[in-house]
């Protein structure tokens, strides 16, 4: 696990809240954190390189850009887990896939350009694996803002 010092943690916390839209946004944030623009940019690059941050930039609301998304769950027999994971992961529409400790042990997110494609892809997974796929699209999102303390 990468070692983070106090400045790294302050940067991660501050940048979750958002960068201002201005000509020198990094200089503004650096001043708030009592560091320089050059140091902030260098630290930010390192945090990304070390995967402390998975991403830095505009966070687009994907649904408002016209795409369709749905969380899907499957209860995969343990003996078949790896083979089914391979079948599911092979689909380009599968954006993430997590193994979770539960009878429902496979959770993946489908991302398609058109809403109708969600059921079509879920059907393809059902057909390929012979297992039920429970589609759980987001119906409502509550109070989204990240506020984890680094």
């Amino acid at each position, binding site marked *: 696990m990468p070692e983070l010092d106090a400045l790294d943690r302050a940067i991660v916390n501050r*940048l979750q809240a958002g960068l201002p839209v201005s000509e020198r946004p990094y200089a503004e944030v650096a001043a708030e954190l009592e560091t320089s623009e050059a140091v902030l*940019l260098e630290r930010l690059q390192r945090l990304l390189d070390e*995967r402390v941050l998975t991403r*830095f930039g*505009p966070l687009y609301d994907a649904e408002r850009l016209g795409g369709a998304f749905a969380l899907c769950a499957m209860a995969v027999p343990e003996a078949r887990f790896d083979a089914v994971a391979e079948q599911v992961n092979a689909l380009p529409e599968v954006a993430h896939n997590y193994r*979770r*400790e539960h009878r429902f042990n496979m959770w993946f997110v489908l991302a398609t350009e058109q809403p109708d494609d969600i059921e079509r892809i879920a059907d393809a997974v059902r057909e390929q694996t012979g297992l039920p796929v429970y589609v*759980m699209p987001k119906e409502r999102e509550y109070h989204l803002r990240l506020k984890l303390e680094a």
Partner: protein
Amino acid sequence: MNAVPDDLRAGLDDLDRRIVLATQAGLPLVPRPFRAVAEQVGADEAEVMRRFRRMQATGIVRRIGAVPNHYALGYRANGMSVWDVDDAQVDALGEQVGALDFVSHCYRRPRHLPHWPYNLFAMVHGRDREEAERQIAVIAQLLGAACRGHDVLYSTRILKKTGLRFAGPDRD
């Protein structure tokens, strides 16, 4: 076939789309990032900044920010807590759960009875499972009698993570 979805075409103009495509992988780490984007999309810096302000105002851009990797920050217990909450109260309570400091995402999703009775999902992140369990106890107390049951599913392995990418006009 043009791969840009209809809604994207309807809601954003061509320059907005070029800006989305140029920045979906990230904002340039240079002193004047909006000028760098402007050069990539063939516009001027002020116009790109105007577009970002507008997309933020309309909610297309949530914020220009950092997405942390919970594991790398020391959050080893990442749990999807799931709750069966009375339909009449789920929206009011969901807002309160979503506002808790340790909840990173909170959503309402459809039940699949009888296999899946849960309609409220709240992601919690603890340094260990004890900390996550304490967080879950706080949620349970907040939901009170409106909640008929709950469970927590810890992630144990990332099987795939490619992120969400939008196809550009030249791809299919």
